[in-house]
Every structure is written in structure tokens, then in C-alpha cells.
């Protein structure tokens, strides 16, 4: 839906890194390099970024119950 504020496992705040991550990956940079430079060291935080799909734009068009 939307990037979690913190890493699920270790609790490190990660949400503020998401937009620069997306921007750089879309420019064609290597994901590994971007994550290393953003300071995502552990595989728990990295998996949140690799596995995340931003669906909020699609979901926002539907009615909330």
C-alpha cells in the first residue's frame, strides 16, 4: 500500500528513504548500490524495500468502507 514507517523486523525508520530509492532505481541505478548508500545494511530492511509495491495510487481510487 504505502511504504512502512519502520522496518518490520529491526525497527529502523526507513520511510524517508523510499522516495530517493525509487527515483534512483527508476534512473537505472543498481538496487544493491542504492540500498548500500542509503544505509540499509541488514537484510530485513532491504527486503522491505525489495518487496514493496506502492499500491496507494490504485487503491485510493476506490471507496473506503
Amino acid at each position: 500500500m504505502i511504504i512502512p514507517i519502520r522496518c518490520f523486523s529491526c525497527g529502523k525508520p526507513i520511510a524517508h528513504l523510499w522516495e530517493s530509492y525509487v527515483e534512483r532505481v527508476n534512473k537505472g541505478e543498481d538496487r544493491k548500490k542504492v540500498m548500500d548508500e542509503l544505509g540499509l545494511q541488514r537484510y530485513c530492511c532491504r527486503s522491505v524495500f525489495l518487496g514493496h509495491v506502492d499500491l496507494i495510487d490504485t487503491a485510493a481510487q476506490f471507496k473506503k468502507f
Partner: protein
Amino acid sequence: MEIRVLDNNKEQGKLSFILKDSNPIFANTLRRLMIDEVPTMAIDEVEFSKNNSILYDEMIAHRLGLIPLKTDLKSYNLPEKCKCEGKGCNRCQLKLVLRATKGSGVVYASELKSKDPAVKPVFAEMPIVKLLKGQTLELEATAVLGKGKQHMKWSPCHAYYKYRPIIEITGDVKNPEAIIEVDHNNIFEIKDRKLVVNKDRVLECDLSLDYSQIDKNVKVTASDTDFVFYIESFGQLSGKEIINKAMDIFDEQLDELAEELKKAK
């Protein structure tokens, strides 16, 4: 006991040090005090006056709670220790207001307006929710001091330690390449066809490999008395503040124990 600081990166909030001549009991006490007992500010209650965004009130409240707030430990008390006895006053709680009525776009943590300029979200670019045209979000949040043992959002850091690795090469190593191949921490190097230890990287050793199975002359052991300690602050407090506060709390708890023991007599 002695502490030697290895690295203090204030920008990333990372602090590492060697704890010398100590024991696992003390190291673990320190770790648990830092994670569970050092108080920080976090949003605890949220009152919504308007929310027709796609996220439910509960989800937004949960996200707000997890946002790290810069904490000033001197000017706030824990609600249970405050003079107002937990009713709520300026010394134990803080109001933050969020009003996002613009047409559309991402609502960031920086839009949370705090009544106290010293306490505000650490990371301004954290997205809270994304609004479409016509959607609005209005809320008033209450931040209080709390402890990590009650909820992880009040925990100031990620703290961990390991025994200090001791690496010895006691004689001729017949096949240095075999050691280099399995060494994923880059502790060893080959110089003049001999295996040598890269002294700068000894502490990076994770003690997970038994090199003596490959060559009896390579010994990796763990020190019983020395620890390599790592603290990764989540941003609310600096590494130094976390340790100092943890030690203050340790003192208080020991005093409390002594008091109770006196009463028991």
C-alpha cells in the same frame, strides 16, 4: 572495566565501542536497559476531525506512532512520574497538529506541527499518507514519553554486541587460498604467499567459521571478558545520550533494590 570508542557517526546515529574487562551479564544488562528502559517521545493518542483518505484512522494513527520524534529528556516527565499523576499536563505531554487540505499529494511528517519546537519528527520526508484531489486529513495527536518495554515505538535504538574475536596464526599455513575462499569477512590476506591477519578488520569477524578444520594453525576464539558493542540510534536521542541515560536508570534501579532489601529485613 574500560570503554574504548571505535566509531561515533553522529549523522547516521551509529556508535560502537569495545567494553573491556567486563562480563556477559553486564553487557546484556546494558543492552536491555538501552532498548527497554531509556524513555523517548512518541505519539500515543490521535484524535481525527477529518479523514477521507484511503487509509483508515487506525492505520494512520499507527504510522504516526512509529514516527521518531526528537526527544528532550530534560523538559518532559514520564506520565506515571509526573506531578499531575498521569492526568496530562505540559510537563508530560505534547500536542501535535496535522492539517492537510491541499488538492493532492503526499503528506509528509514535516507537516506535523508541534507546539514545542524542540520536539518534532526526526525525518521530515517520511510519507504519512497520499491524498487524492478532494481528500483531506485533519487530526490532533498527543505525544508522551514512554519506554520500549511497553511498545517498540518508544525504544531509542537497536543495540547488539558480540564477544571480541581473537585471531591467531600459530605456524605455517599450508593452503592459504582455502582460508581466503571461505573467509567472507575479509579478515585474512596473502602477503608473500603467507597468510596474514588484516589488523583493521579483526573486529569484523563474526565468529561463525571454524578455520581450524581447514588448518590447525589458524585459531579464531572469542574473548570471555571483552565485547564489541554496537548502538544504532533511531534518531530520537544520540548514542551518547542513550548510554548515559541507561547508566542513570541502572543506578536508580540498584538504589531501589537496596531500599527494598532494607525493608525486607
